[in-house]
């Protein structure tokens, strides 16, 4: 599903003395089937942005188009339908688990949306496999599981709906490195196998670089930059000005260029490339 924001304004507590504008004239496009990362400093408007994607909030001005759905300040009755297509995994989704068993919890969404429950039950083994959980957790209480497992159950409860758009709000916060890389591989796998559109909100520049084909950089409720990750991370100063860092591999490339006086081209901005540049540097020294 294509997602388009057209001149979107959002103001919290609109028409009160406490109003606070979170989004200013926001316009961008997320192509169907893309993996888009949204990065930005705390308070840059990332979360406000993603709440528009499934109609939790609506623009005060402007328009959001998601596939065939349009959201504007006018009253809208298709929101429930939209939510069938756009799955959102919020921060710390494990806090939203509530059912007696994992099975009931995962099937809560399908039941609410009126899906064929028998069919969904048959698919459960597959869904669990997708999120890396054993089938025997189905009859256990979600509250007996470890934090990482609980998060997987919560994610299963979203992907069981087979959304066309999967929105992930800092899904790896609080996980250890191993848990984090497993979780990201899972999303990358889902993205490819289901041909869905993925929107990932993250603090980790490394993750944006590794998985996203498009990055939207938010600052003070506006799009600061949009483009391919490799292009964006060249703009070190501009990112730093808005409180963001570039991935360590880019910092290292910059440092090598300044210190050793050899150039690191764009294709070499990864571990192997940098290692090769350094090997060449040392070997050249040995010859001269």
């Amino acid at each position: 599903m294509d997602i388009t924001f057209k001149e979107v304004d959002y103001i919290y507590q609109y028409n009160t003395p406490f109003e606070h504008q979170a989004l200013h004239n926001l316009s961008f496009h997320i192509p169907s089937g893309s993996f888009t990362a949204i990065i930005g400093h705390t308070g840059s408007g990332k979360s406000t942005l993603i709440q528009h994607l499934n109609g939790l909030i609506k623009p005060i001005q402007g328009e959001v188009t998601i596939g065939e759905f349009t959201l504007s300040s006018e009253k809208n009755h298709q929101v429930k339908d939209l939510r069938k297509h756009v799955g959102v995994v919020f921060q710390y989704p494990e806090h939203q688990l509530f059912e007696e068993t994992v099975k009931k919890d995962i099937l809560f969404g399908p039941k609410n949306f009126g899906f064929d429950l028998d069919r969904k039950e048959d698919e459960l083994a597959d869904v669990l496999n997708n999120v890396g959980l054993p089938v025997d957790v189905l009859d256990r209480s979600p509250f007996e599981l470890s934090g990482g497992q609980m998060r997987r159950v919560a994610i299963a409860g979203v992907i069981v709906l087979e959304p066309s758009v999967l929105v992930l709000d800092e899904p790896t916060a609080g996980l250890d490195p191993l848990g984090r890389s497993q979780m990201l591989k899972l999303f990358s796998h889902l993205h490819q196998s289901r041909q869905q559109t993925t929107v990932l909100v993250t603090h980790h520049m490394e993750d944006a670089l590794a998985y996203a084909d498009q990055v939207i950089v938010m600052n003070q409720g506006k799009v600061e930059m949009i483009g391919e990750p490799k292009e964006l991370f060249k703009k070190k100063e501009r990112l730093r000005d808005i409180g963001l860092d570039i991935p360590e591999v880019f910092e290292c490339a910059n440092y090598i260029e300044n210190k050793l006086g050899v150039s690191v081209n764009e294709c070499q901005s990864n571990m192997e490339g940098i290692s090769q540049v350094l090997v060449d540097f040392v070997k050249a020294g040995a010859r001269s």
Partner: protein
Amino acid sequence: MIKFDRVSFRYRDDSSKVINDINLSIDRGEWVALIGHNGSGKSTVAKMMNGLLLPSEGQVFIDDIELTEQNLIEVRQKVGMVFQNPENQFVGTTVLDDVAFGLENLGVDPEYMYERIQQSLKQVSMDGYEQHEPHRLSGGQKQRIAIAGVLAMLPEVIVFDEATTMLDPMGRKDLLQTMKTLKEERGLSIVSITHDLTEAAFADRVLVLNQGEVWFEGEPRQLFAKGEELENIGLEPPFVTKLYHQLKSENITLEREPLDFKELVDELWTLHLKK
């Protein structure tokens, strides 16, 4: 300063040990990083450092005094804790009130109290924020207010329990810098609990826990030299360690294991000049 003597811990009598027979010590003015994956027991160890949990077996000493239920209050003043989410601990409606909370409980003279609060806020570069609401500050600022609250109690050790995990990259760098300043200027001991090895590079000494036991103890450099072994216990080697590993496979070796990419590049530069 802090000493664990053959400490074990289990949450219930019939459950298995989360911490199994560990010895450790933290010296005055030392920065020790306590590392391990989720569930390795590191937070349990942290909570035993100021008596939030008491050992099931073995003893914990603070300044050579054994920690018991009777002397908890005095010990807690010496060992301050900063947690992952400072928001859960805010009690005051203004920064001033919040930082004063611990001192008020001790019945400190108001005039002296004000002075100590000012000093503490200054040390974390948050002076001027006295009348702000803690809840409306940024993540990094909230964390610094939490630290000021602990500092006002004049502790000798501060334990940071994954205090940087929720911060964005800049907030994280700032906080690490604050920790470094506290250690250098105030001579505080720092215990930082983390699963981020890049953060461990700041420490004088590193303890790695795995399945409730001490898996490694030594300098950060020695730990990084373990390379791929780290992955086996659920830790991710830092960028520089992976890069150096690649170079080693091309027969380029340095005199010592690099702590960050600057060290690595600088040494290659020196190597190059010598040739």
